[in-house]
């Protein structure tokens, strides 16, 4: 044995094989049927075997007895008739034959020998099939059964048959007895089987019923009904002491008791956990409410701050625009710096308002087929100058793809990402904007914006979508943005049902990507609005409603500078009255949302739409709260947020002029 073992060194190297999982155990039917089989099959086998053996034995005994009796009669007749046959004493032989018949065992006796003696007794049977014949030779015998009477040297005459006895037995009774034995055997076997079947069925039920109940209880526990119990007790449990040893108890009762205890424990644990969950939920709800409150407060703060900042900024912008044409050459650089700062502040406020609006979820994207070629052309027109200034190559690859998305929002995202990339690309670097079919799903298009700039350290990659988070602008240079672009992009992407992913490494550039659904080829393209040519605004009749006289003054100065006729009104009621006179026609109505007192700009705009349907009704507001925005959206009101950029206002009025011109 030992020489077959591996040497020590190699033995250590042998790793024991992983334990093989036991093969699946297949069971069929149910326990009651198994128990039934377990009990009945051996009983049936034993009953059948025993009955078969006993019946066979009994039949053999009957056969042997039948034969033995017939043979015995034949032998006895032979014994009785030996001397008479020797002497040819026919009367004596007849007496012997008749005497043999009187016993009733045989129905016919024939005694004969070769000398012509033939003595019969009993009727000649009509059918030999019912008879069985037994023969016995007749030999001369003596009491001591020795051949002593024979002279020495002579053949023993006693051994030589001197005749033959034939007895015939009727097999009818024997066959009947045989059939009866057979039927009795079968009957006994059937009775035994029936008894076994009944008792085993009873036992199997006795065993299977508690098990079934235990199984049901376990199933109920699994379904969460912890109040379920087995309720299986031992028959004499009320007599036995409760602390009876497990060895003496019925195993099924013990199992049921254990499961009941388990159920009790589960129920108790569930109670405790529910209690804890309730407490935790209450705490979570409280915190959520606090968080919601905080978010609401923040939005409200942002809205209020935005409104309160916009108001003076709006006025400032209006005045600066008014001052610039008349500024002396010495003043002009300062006024320009002032205008630049105001624009920065406006941009910042616009971003904040955008974020606020996105958080309020008041924007609904308009999904259309967007050919990426057109989109990229527009973006190229926007950013080509910047790229050229910074000597960055800007490459576009649309591959003829089109997507299903909101064109403006998608343009906003991609444009933001391109601006971002141009900002971080080194001089002489390249920014590539490419679209291609998504490798994972052919129905999507992946738009990537790639630069070969310094890249983003992994530590920053998770935070670049946060508001005001900037990677390399510790000095907070406003010309490098405020750190809100990616935050807004992320929000817009979420609104479009996608997300922006970033892949970057230091000194290896960055790749921002988003996936949008691909458009079907047969989908119609929304025709682009024709570019509106700027037309002079001279003669445009405008009404400006604001409770702030500074705003009113600024607005009047700007509009009159553009050649418009301006009527300024400070209250809503007055404005409505002026609109309803009927003799005055206004081309545009610009109304502040929050007027003095209880006046509401919405009412003025509604009245203007009613009274002057052809007029352009625009609500001007610095409020960016979600409630306000929702309300305006439902009212279908055109909104200009403060501070209103003069260019934007001019563009708006130009469209009015363009629409009114044919008339």
């Amino acid at each position: 044995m030992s020489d077959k073992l591996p040497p020590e060194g190699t033995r250590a190297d042998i790793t024991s094989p992983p334990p093989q999982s036991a093969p699946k155990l297949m069971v069929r039917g149910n326990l009651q049927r198994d128990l039934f089989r377990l009990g009945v099959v051996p009983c049936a086998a034993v009953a059948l075997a025993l009955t078969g053996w006993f019946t066979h034995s009994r039949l053999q005994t009957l056969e042997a007895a039948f034969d033995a009796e017939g043979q015995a009669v034949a032998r006895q007749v032979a014994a009785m008739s030996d001397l008479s046959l020797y002497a040819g004493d026919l009367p004596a032989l007849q007496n012997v034959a008749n005497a043999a018949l009187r016993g009733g065992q045989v129905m016919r006796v024939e005694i004969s020998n070769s000398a012509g003696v033939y003595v019969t007794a009993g009727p000649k049977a009509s059918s030999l099939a019912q008879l069985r014949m037994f023969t016995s030779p007749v030999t001369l015998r003596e009491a001591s059964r020795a051949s002593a009477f024979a002279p020495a040297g002579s053949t023993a005459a006693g051994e030589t048959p001197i005749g033959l006895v034939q007895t015939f037995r009727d097999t009818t009774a024997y066959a009947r007895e045989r059939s009866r034995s057979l039927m009795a055997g079968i009957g006994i076997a059937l009775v035994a089987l029936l008894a076994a079947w009944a008792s085993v069925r009873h036992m199997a039920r006795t065993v299977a019923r508690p098990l079934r109940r235990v199984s049901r209880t376990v199933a109920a526990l699994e379904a969460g009904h912890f109040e379920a119990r087995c309720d299986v007790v031992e028959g004499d449990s009320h007599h036995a002491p409760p602390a009876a040893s497990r060895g003496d108890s019925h195993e099924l009762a013990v199992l049921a008791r254990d499961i009941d205890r388990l159920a009790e424990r589960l129920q108790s644990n569930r109670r405790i956990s529910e209690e804890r969950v309730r407490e935790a939920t209450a705490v979570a709800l409280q915190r959520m409410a606090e968080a919601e409150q905080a978010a609401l407060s923040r939005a409200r703060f942002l809205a209020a701050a935005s409104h309160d900042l916009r108001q003076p900024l709006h006025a400032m912008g209006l005045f600066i625009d008014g001052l610039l044409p008349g500024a002396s050459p010495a003043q002009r650089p300062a006024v320009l710096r002032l205008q630049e700062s105001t624009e920065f502040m406006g941009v910042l406020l616009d971003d904040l308002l955008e974020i606020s609006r996105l958080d309020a979820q008041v924007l609904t994207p308009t999904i259309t087929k967007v050919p990426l070629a057109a989109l990229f052309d527009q973006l190229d027109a926007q950013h080509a100058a910047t790229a050229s200034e910074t000597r960055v190559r800007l490459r576009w690859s649309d591959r003829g793809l089109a997507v299903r998305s909101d064109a403006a929002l998608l343009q906003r995202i991609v444009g933001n990402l391109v601006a971002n990339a141009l900002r971080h690309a080194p001089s002489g670097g390249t920014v590539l904007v490419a679209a291609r079919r998504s490798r994972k799903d052919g129905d999507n298009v992946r738009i990537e914006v790639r630069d070969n700039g310094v890249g983003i350290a992994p530590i920053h990659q998770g935070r670049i979508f946060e508001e005001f988070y900037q990677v390399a602008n510790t000095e907070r240079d406003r010309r490098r943005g405020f750190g809100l672009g990616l935050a807004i992009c992320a929000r817009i992407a979420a609104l479009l049902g996608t997300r922006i992913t970033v892949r970057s490494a230091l000194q290896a550039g960055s790749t921002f990507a988003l996936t949008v659904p691909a458009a079907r080829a047969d989908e119609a393209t929304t025709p682009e609005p024709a570019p509106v040519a700027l037309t002079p605004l001279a003669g445009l009749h405008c009404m400006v409603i604001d409770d702030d006289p500074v705003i009113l003054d600024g607005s009047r100065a700007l509009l009159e500078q553009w050649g418009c006729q301006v009527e300024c009104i400070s209250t809503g009621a007055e404005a409505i009255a002026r609109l309803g006179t009927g003799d005055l026609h206004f081309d545009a109505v610009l109304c502040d949302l929050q007027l003095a007192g209880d006046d509401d700009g919405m009412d003025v705009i509604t009245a203007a739409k009613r009274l002057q349907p052809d007029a352009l009704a625009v609500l001007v507001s610095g409020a960016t709260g979600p409630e306000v925005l929702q309300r305006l959206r439902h009212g279908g009101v055109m909104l200009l947020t403060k501070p209103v950029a003069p260019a934007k206002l001019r563009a708006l009025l130009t469209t009015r002029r363009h629409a009114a011109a044919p008339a």
Partner: protein
Amino acid sequence: MFVAVNPSISLFRKRLRRGARIALAMSAALLAAPTPAAALTVLMGDELAAHSEFVQYLRAGQEPGSRFDLVRLSPGGADTPQATETASAEPERSAGVNSGVRTRSLRALASDANLTMAVGMPAARAALERPGQQPLVLAMLSRLDYENLRATSPALRRGDRRVGVLLRDPAMADQLALVGAVLPQKQRIGVVATPESEPLVRELQRAAQGGSPPWDVQVEYAPDAKSLAASLRAVVPRSDALMVLPDLIGDSQAATLSVLRAGAEAGLPVFGASEGLVRSGGLAAAVSTPAQLAQQARLLGQKLAGSGGGASPLVESATPAAVRVNTTVARGLGLRLPEERELAERLTVTR
């Protein structure tokens, strides 16, 4: 189970007697005719069939006008007779054997009678004890009965009364003559006897010695008639034929069958003195009949009447009337035997 009894021997005598009754009765009557008319008193102590038949033949052979008295003794053979029948032979012959029976006292009967005949052992004993000088014939006794009487009854040798004894079995010489006629080449005769058979054995041996050439008699004694096996085993190998003596063995059916079976098994012929033995497996037998015995008894009576008397009784064995042969047995033994009549004639010539 059943028990089969072989009644051949008991039936044998009865049938034999019936068969030969008529012819023998006629011959007995003819033989008795020249005798002077004498009164015959017959004593019967039992009701055996053979004895009754014998008495009938006696009555049938009685002369017309002669006196025939039948006295029936009590079953125990007491001195005082129970009944006496007295009848005249002639007038009663036509009326039947037992008709016209008169009763009278034994004493009165004895004074008038010429011959008294006692049939059977009880009657013989009673007759011997009875006083009187009339001739007395003791008929139908076996050899052993006679020996018994001789030993126990001194009246048998009274000088004042002539007594004749007629044995019912043929003489041993006749038996040996039959054996000689059937088996001419054989000499050894095997006999199984009991101690009581001693007189018979002596007679047989005497007869054997008288044979020419003398018979070789092989005798084996058995303790009794029920224990024959050892004696048979001893005697059979030394014998050419077996003989059944009219003793306790011959009178016992079982013992006779044992001898017959032994002979059959050993292939030996068995001889005897009864027709039943022949039917049951014996080869041949010289038999006497009641009619023949009745005639012989009457002749013995006449012989007594003519004789001068003496102390010893006159003893005669029965004269064989016929020979019976079992042809089946003979065929089984491979023997070719003469006709029964021819054998009987040979016996007569021999005598």
